């Protein structure tokens, strides 16, 4: 069933590159519209209703066309190359990480044995591109925003990695395809799927820590301090306009999807059907995988319209004095559980 096993010729490489890109672009258009609709519904509003007919489904497309037409403003004293390069590097970092995500049993961009390690390494380039954008703008507020954003991402990378490590302790493999395949079947308590979150009570704690950390890593409420659109201008994005700004937006949404999909792979069985053999197969696998990922994205949006924003000191306190110790203690407990059972 491995349709894309041979990555040798140039067309096949381009095809492999195009599939995640298509998924990201379509997802971004749907997610931005969906986020606005969810925001509207939660606040008893309607959200976008005008563009395209049914519930303003074409709103994101209209916004994209508007952003394309906008002037590309570069500040006079900005570091031109870095300023222009930062948004694309940020998107590239998010996009490159999709290479190791197993979208279905028949498709994974690159079936390498250090998948999770590669993913975490590549996404740390996001921090670099954010500092690049903030510094290159030659604007003290952009720089401050970039520094804050980078500090937040670097801090929350630690609990993320620690919780990912707990899963790796259980699975014994860094390859996400192998991790997913290990969760096939419905044997837990006789009928539940063999998802990792259902196999080990300490992995539930791990998932909660992981979810809080990815909220912070993708700059979602309640950890959206770098942007905090109701208070600040836009943090490191202040000087950006038009398509360059849209690239940041796209990268953030791609990052959100990436981390949600990673969560789905590590804790919710990836492309495995929740009904065992029923409704399984490469296409159904893709459906289940995206459904799980988008559900996590929905929870992120849901939390956004529920919780208020943390202060910077609270943000750092949660990370360094609660989540990091807890995640390492949890790692020990998971390891003990694996030793005993």
């Amino acid at each position, binding site marked *: 069933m491995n349709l894309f096993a041979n990555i040798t010729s140039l067309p096949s490489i381009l095809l492999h590159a195009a599939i995640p890109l298509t998924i990201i672009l379509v997802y971004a258009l749907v997610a931005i519209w969906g986020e606005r609709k*969810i925001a509207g*519904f939660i606040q*008893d*509003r*309607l959200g976008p209703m005008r563009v395209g007919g049914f519930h303003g489904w074409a709103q994101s497309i209209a916004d994209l066309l508007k952003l394309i037409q906008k002037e590309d403003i570069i500040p006079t004293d900005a570091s031109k190359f870095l300023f222009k390069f930062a948004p694309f590097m940020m998107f590239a970092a998010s996009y490159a990480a999709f290479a190791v995500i197993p979208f279905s049993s028949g498709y994974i961009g690159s079936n390498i044995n250090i998948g999770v390690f590669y993913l975490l390494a590549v996404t740390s380039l996001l921090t670099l591109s954010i500092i690049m954008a903030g510094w290159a703008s030659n604007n003290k507020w952009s720089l401050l925003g970039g520094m804050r954003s980078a500090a937040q991402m670097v801090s929350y990378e630690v609990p993320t990695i620690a919780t990912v490590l707990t899963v790796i302790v259980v699975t014994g493999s860094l390859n996400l395809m192998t991790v997913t395949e290990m969760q096939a079947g419905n044997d837990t308590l006789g009928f539940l799927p063999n998802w990792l979150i259902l196999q080990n009570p300490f992995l539930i704690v791990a998932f909660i820590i992981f979810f809080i950390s990815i909220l912070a890593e993708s700059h979602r409420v309640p950890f959206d301090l770098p942007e905090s659109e109701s208070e600040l201008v836009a943090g490191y994005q202040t000087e950006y306009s038009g398509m360059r700004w849209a690239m940041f937006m796209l990268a953030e949404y791609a990052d959100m999807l990436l981390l949600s999909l990673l969560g789905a792979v590590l804790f919710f069985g990836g492309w495995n059907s929740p009904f065992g053999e029923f409704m399984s197969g490469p296409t159904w696998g893709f459906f289940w995988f995206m459904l799980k990922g988008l559900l996590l994205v929905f929870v992120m949006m849901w939390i956004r319209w*529920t919780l208020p924003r943390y202060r910077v000191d609270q943000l750092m306190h949660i990370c360094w004095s609660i989540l990091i110790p807890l995640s390492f203690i949890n790692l020990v407990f998971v390891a003990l559980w694996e030793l005993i059972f």
Partner: protein
Amino acid sequence: MLNDIKVGWRTFRSIFKGMGITFGHLFSPSVTLQYPEERMELPKGARARLYVNIDDCIGCNLCARACPVNCIDIETVPSTADVDLGVTSTGNPKRFWLTRFNIDMAKCMYCDLCVHPCPTDCIYMVPEYEYSEFDRTNLVYHFSNLKPDMVASVKVKAEIEAEEKLKQKEELARQKAELAKKKAEEQAEEAKPKSDEPAAGDPGKDIKPETKPVSDESDKDESKPETKTEGAEPAADETGKEGIKPETKPESDEPAANDSDKEGIKPEAKPDNSDADSDESSKKENGE
């Protein structure tokens, strides 16, 4: 340690409680009205735009006087004896041509004070609030349904009648004065020692009650803001006569014109009334 667990439990419980509330709102009906397609029904008694049912207006000017910002501009001309303007739907007789009834909604402050004094309830607020204009002058609403030529002819007729009335009044006053003089002279002849004082007082006393009906009419006339002839009325003395006489000279020509006017107006007035009826019915439909 135990305290930390308690705090953690409380935190998560409150987060899930909050998320439960927002999840409930996710499915609760929206409060948004899709404006151009959907509109909120205005509450009863909403003050949005003034409307005048001109067929019921008796030209009493009460609304214009009540207006704190002078946004109502009314000009009335008394109807002449040959025209019957009919009665309003409330039964009040109409005595004035409404040559002008303008309401400047740009000035209006929606206080509703003009609505309540109206004896025929013909000025009221209608629930129409989408009447923005690019030009401010378009916010002046003209409610008078008289045509400009009609207005002119009505004014001319009213002036002529007013002059005639004035003349009659002066004639009457002169006759009374002469009568009083004669009486005074007779009395003076009868009783010379009583001096002139009662004689000077008597004619005045005699004249006043007799001229009262006339002066009452003039009082009514005063309610009209623009009767030029009124200024001459108080000076209805011998000097006034001299001033008026040259004016009345061309009267010999005017009656002929007056007659022709009457003939001209009567047929005009009939279609006008029918127009007014149709307007009334159409406006009522609009209003309701």
